[in-house]
Structure formats: structure tokens, C-alpha cells
């Protein structure tokens, strides 16, 4: 239950902060949630990752679907050298997730201090 709440909170806070701040504000969102909700460092890492991964990949998927994958197909050619909107969505989620994971781990360790 705590895991699900953490994931949802991370995603929600990340979304809200991103309206006003640069992209890296997702790190703060993951950090704050991990700091506030007591979890083991490994679980925090997982929830931070999943929270931002889901936020970014679902948003990207939503935007890309409305766009008929027109731009994602072009950008995936440019960045990944293959035409795959799905891959670009996945890579987006992974990059956000990595930052979220590291920040949540930091938050959880800071809490323990």
C-alpha cells in the first residue's frame, strides 16, 4: 500500500512541480516523497523510479497518441536511429525514472540520518 501511495505521490508532485519549474524538479518530487514516507532505501528507489517512469512514459504516450506518433517517429530516428515511437516513449520514461530513483534513494537515506 505504501509503495502505491509513494508512486502516486511522486508522480503527482512531479507533475505539479514541472508546470512551474525545469525538468529536473522531478528529483525534488521523488526526494520529498521518499523523505516523508518511511520506506527501506531499496523500496524508495523502486517507488521513485516507478513514479517518474510512469509519469513520463504515460504522458509521452498520451501526447504521442494524440499526435499519431508523427513527431516521435521523427525524433526516434534522430536520437535512436530507428523509427519507433514506442522506444522513444520508453527511453523518456527510463531517463526520468533514473533521476527519480536516485533522488528517492537520497531522500530515504536522508530520512534515516
Amino acid at each position: 500500500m505504501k509503495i502505491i501511495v509513494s508512486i502516486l505521490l511522486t508522480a503527482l508532485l512531479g507533475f505539479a512541480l514541472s508546470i512551474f519549474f525545469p525538468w529536473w524538479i522531478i528529483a525534488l518530487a521523488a526526494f520529498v516523497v521518499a523523505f516523508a514516507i518511511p520506506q527501506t532505501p531499496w523500496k524508495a528507489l523502486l517507488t521513485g523510479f516507478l513514479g517518474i517512469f510512469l509519469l513520463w512514459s504515460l504522458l509521452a504516450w498520451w501526447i504521442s497518441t494524440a499526435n499519431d506518433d508523427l513527431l516521435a517517429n521523427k525524433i526516434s530516428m534522430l536520437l535512436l536511429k530507428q523509427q519507433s515511437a514506442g522506444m522513444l516513449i520508453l527511453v523518456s520514461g527510463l531517463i526520468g525514472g533514473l533521476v527519480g530513483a536516485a533522488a528517492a534513494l537520497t531522500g530515504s537515506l536522508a530520512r534515516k540520518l
Partner: protein
Amino acid sequence: MRFVYLAFAFLLTIGLIIVFDTRKVLPAPLGRLLSPQHGIWQNAEPSDAGFNEDLLLPDLQDKVDVYFDERLVPHVFARNETDLYYVQGYLHAKFRLWQMEFQTHAAAGRLSEILGEGPEGRILEYDRSMRRLGMVYAAERSVEEADKTPESKAQYEAYTKGVNAWITQLKESQLPIEYKLLGYSPEQWSPLKTALFLKYMSFDLAGGEDDLEFTNARDFFSKQDFEKLYPYLSDSLKPIQPNTPESPYPASAAMDLRRPADADSLYFRFPAGSDSITKLPPYQPNPENGSNNWAVGGTKTRSGRPILCNDPHLGLNLPSLWFEMQLSCPAFSAYGATFPGSPNVIIGFNEDISFGFTNAGRDVKDYYEIEFQDETKNAYRFNNEWLPTSKRVEIIRIKGKPDLLDTVAYTAIGPVMYDNNYRNSEKNVSNLAVRWQAHEPSNDGLTFYGLNHAKSYSDGVKAIRNLHCPGQNCLIASRNGDYGIWQQGTFPAKWRRQGDFVMPGTDSAYFWKGTIPETENPHLENPSRGYVSSANQLSADTSYPYYTGNVFPVYRGFMVNRFLDTANNLSPQDMMAMQTSNYVIKAELSRDILTRLPVEKLDDRLKKYFEFYQKWNNKADPGEPGSTVFHLWWRELEQKIWKDEFSRANVPLPWPGEYVLIESLHKDSAYAWIDDVSTPEKETLEDDLLASLKTAADSLDKLSAQNNLDWEKAKDTKIRHLLRVIDPFSRLHLPIGGGKGIINATGPDHGPSWRMIVAMTDGIEAYGVYPGGQSGNPGSRYYDDFVDHWVTGKYYRLWMMKAGEEADDRVKWTMHFRKA
């Protein structure tokens, strides 16, 4: 220990952010780019996006309504002109901001600032060439000149405010995708940027010359050979103004055009040899920049009213150079192609007249060799005196590197483009000042302002008098039946071959002798033959008393006139067929030459290709291998005939014009260049035909192996994104025919950038299409949605919307601009 873990996790987080926010580790800032709320995902426009909006903006005087049709063409209705140009600026920025700024950066020699110095320093080299040519200097002077005309000043300021209204409210997430990919942000717009854009068009259209190459050729060839290789009067020439009793040329020049007394020894010194130029300007406008335009009078049309047609041939890019729109206010309603970066409709029509342009291609850029007093370059010799120079320091910012300071000396002739810091030869230093008409202060934008407002043919002619550079063949047709064409611009009055070579800069005797009086510029109005036309050919034949320059294409003009001479009862649909015609007149005129091929000597491989050619109908249509054989064969034949002599010069020489070989062989079957001077044998034309077909066959074999023998595949037309390196933003391998010297002048990356046909009936029946789309955003379905239509030679009906038609089905979205 816990503290160590924490420190590690913290540093890891910061590290990841740095890796994904900068280009220090990865080639792209992936976090910044792929964040769905900030990066490129924000540029993915929903395919069912709407464009309805209510806007409150501070600088408006009154309300403005904009109606978009299903092609996203805005029809702007304003209550005064200031608001009209404000909204035009706003809409240009909304749909095309990145390209507007990129093009003005290119004009100002500022690309290194955003792109870095480039592979082998090529981008920096380009920037330096634009700076040293004085592009910014020229733009600054034209802003000063425009400020003297109240309408222009008000127009440019309103337009600037409109662009800036868009830029100011832009959030990072809304930036055009190119800014995100390259990592920079837009600057504020200014009237100087509009001037820079217009100067870029001057550079593109009146900045080309081959003076340095021709100087090399003069130093290498004998006078007789030179005249044979570079004749400027072609047998196929149909001048824009024929010299007839109905439209006679001026009997004599308005000024003394005798050449300087020492010209034979100082200027026409064939072959002198020693001090040839080995390096040419690193970036030259595409020599194919040109266009077709023609207007037929009511005597030749079904409706009894004139029809005007225009297709400007320019580099094919995405986002397109053009943006289609309608501008309406109480004073006028104009529709057509606009330049993002400048106010007004540029090629289009209003309710009374239509207007179009082709490039005059006159040589208004000449080089003079300067003698400096010493290496300080503070003084130069002129008419036996030392005159002071002025200096302009160009500061070139380079991404990732320290600034480059480049000092350019300015003389009364113009900037000294080449000197010891910017050399045109590895061997010698020569100081070459450039005299360019685009440096003269002029308010050329007033031309379009006037044409948009014009109520009659004569208003239109008054408007084009403001055009000084780039010189254009201005075509105007009116609803009351008048039509005509004027080669308009400030053209230097030159003696024969003046400025074809580098001129001595120490003596005013070599200066331009003044300006050709405007009324003596070539023109033709309501002629009895029933049409006027231009296609960048020589505007007048050699009985015209002024020298008009040396490099001109002839074949498109020949074909246009051949069609129109016999055509009657014309409709807009006939004009479409003509604009998209792929007939290769050069193939027709050269058939008697190529069929002298000794067929008995052909092996099976060559026979196959020759049969393709024999069966071919002279049309460069898609699916025609014969066209591919012809074009490659002819290119190799030219190489076979001239390359052996030309390669001995070891310096760049101009290649002879498209008509030279055909006409030379028709006149002289023992044409001296046929012989290959590198072999002991004496070659005949038949030998050269066979040898060149063999060489061509090697290329044809390669094409054939890749299944690319059909003309459209061999030619491989593409529309590249302006950055040229982003293939996914480009449209490649377009199945379209046409090519050089063909009315449908679609080359590999160059061609008809806006096809327009306007029948001057009441209410105006107009058609048009350009190879692009209204949106500059590669993530929008409006980015390239006209391309397929353009490829297949189709047109859109252009809708000049009237007040009261707001509820028309064609209106899809509405933007309301209100004063804040």
C-alpha cells in the same frame, strides 16, 4: 557509513541531472529534451488540434479577427494598417519563429554563434564571407532609408511589435523544436532583422556573379576562344522585350559608355596567365535561382481577362520560405505568398491587380583591385591620391570558442572583401573591394506595400519603382485588362563586358557610368502578340544600348514563348499544364547531334541505353529512363569536349552555358574543342559521342543496379530541413519530374517554390501551391501537408475571403485579437 551512502546517492542524483541536462557527457541533453512537460513532446501537436483563440494584447489599437481555412491559411481582417502588420508579425512568429530568426542569423553571418564553427570551419568561413561582403552594413543602411518613409517606419515597427508580442509570452516548453535541439533561445525581433532578411533575398538573387572565374578564363583563353566559349547571345534567346517597332529599344545610351582608354592593356588582357585567382567565394547563391512568370492578355483567354502566372525557383526547404495569407483592412485586401520575417504579401493579388516576379539576374556586383598605401590599410590609391579608408570590426561569436574579430576596410567603392586576412589565392595577396548595388540605401519593401495597395496597372508600375535591388522582372496584370512586365531595379550603365572581370580600383575611369534611366529598362506592355513573359533570360538582345551581363539561361524562356505564341482560348487549367510541363527543349534541339552516334560500334550494354534514349519523348517525366540517359550522356559529352582543355588551367573556370555546345556544334561541325588534346589522335564528334556514352553507361549501370534508372529516381528531388542535417525533418525521394532548363524547373533540391495562377476575372479566380505547409513545426500535420499535392502538379483554389463570409464552411478556426 550512512553518511557515505547518503553522499553517494546525493552525488549520483546531481550527476544524473548534469548528464541529462547538458551536452557535456551525452551528445544531447536527454532529460531536458525528453521531459514530456518541457521537451520535444510539447511540440507534438495533436492531429485534431484547434486554433481558436481569444487574445488580449497591449499594442493593438482596435480589434482584429483572423479566420483560418482548412489548410491553415490565415485571413486577417483589421480595422487599420498598424494592427494588420502587428498581427501579420504575430502570426509569422507563431507559426515560423525559428526559421525567421535562423534566416536572419544566416544573413548577418551569425550561424557560428548557434552551430559552432562547423566541419573544417565551414560555418565560420560562411559567416566571415557574409560579414566581409557587408551584409549587416547593407541592412543597417536600408533601415535608415526606410525610416525616412512614414508608412514604412510604421509598418516595420508594428510588424516588429507583433513578432515580439509572440516571443515575449513564449514559455520554454513552447519553443520551436529546433531551439530545443540546438540549445538556444530567440532574441527580440527588430526592423534590422526584417532588413537583414530582405538583404538575404538580395544576396540570393543579386549576389551571384562569376567575375573571379571569368577573370581566370580571360587570363587563360585567347580572345577568340573566350568569345566562342562564353557567348552571351544565344540563338534560342527570346528576350523579355523584343526590339520591334511596337516596343523599340532606346536608340542610344543616355550617357557616354565608351570604355576607358587603357582598357585593352589593363582590362581585356587575354591571356595574361600569371596572377589567377585560385579560391572562390566559399558560398555562392545557387545559380539556378530563377523563376518563370508570364501573363496572357484577354485576347488569348477564354474569359477575355488577363491571366497571370508565376513560379519562383528557389532552394527547396522545410519550413518553406513562403507562408500563405490574406491581409485585409479598409484600404485593401491582398492574398498570396508572404515572407516570414517581412510584412506585406510578396507574390499574390488584390481585388484589382495581381503581381509576380522573376529574377533579373543582372550583374550588380563587381570587384575592383585596391592598392593600399601600407599594411595598416588606412589609405588606398585612387586617381593618384591616397584616400583614407574606414574600418568596420566584425565580432563573430563562435559556440564553444572565443570570439573572432575581423576588421574590414571600406573604400568609396565598397568593403575590401579579400585581403591578406581573407585571401582568394594561396599564391598571391590581392585586395579586392566589392561594389554591390545592395549596399546602396534603398527601401525596397515599399514595392510590396505599394503593390498590395494598388488599384490599377499604373499604380502597380508606380509601386515597383521602389525596387532597386534585387532587380526583378516585375509582372502585373489588372482586372481591367492591362498587363505588362518591367525589368525593374537600379542597374548600372555598363560598357560591353564591364565588370565581367576584376577591374582596376585605382582609377575612377572603371567606375559604373551611372544608372540606366528607369524608363529605358526593358519592358513590354499590352503587346499585340497577346502575352508577356520572363524566365531569367537576357532581357534584351544586343541592340539594346547598355550591356546587361553575361550569364543567362535561355531554354525555359524559349519554351514559355513557344507555348504562348500559338496558344489561344486559355483557361487557368491550361496554365497549370504549362507550369508543370516537363518538356526538355534541349533534348529536342540536340537530337540531330546525339543521333550521329556510330550505332554499329555499340555493344549490347550501350545499345540498351541508346534505345531508351531513342524511344524517349523528350519529356522529363517520372518513369522515364530515357531522360536519365539523355541528361547523363549530355553531361559527359560536355566533359569530353571541354574538360581536357579546361583542366590545364588549374584554376576554377566558368563552365559554358546550357546552349553553348548545341549551338557551337550546329554552326561548326569541325568544332576545335572536339579533339582531346591529351591524346595524339585527332578525335571526331562521333568518337566523343561514343566515349561519352560509355562513361555515362558506367553511371547508368550503377543506377540500374539500384533500380534508380527512372528519371525521378535518378534526379532524387528532396526538400531538406533548413539545418540540412536532420533527415527525419526533411522530405526525401520525391517522385517528381522536371529539371534544369525545363519549365517545371524542379532539380534535386531546388525548384518552383510557389506556383501561382491568377485569372483577373471579377472576384478573381486564383490557384496556388507551395512545397511545404503552413506550420514550421515538424511535429504538426500542417508541416508538410502541401508537398504531395505539389509533387503531383496539383493546385489549391485560393480563397480571397470577403467581410461577411465569417460563417462560410471554409472557416475552420478563428482567432480574436483584442486590445488589452
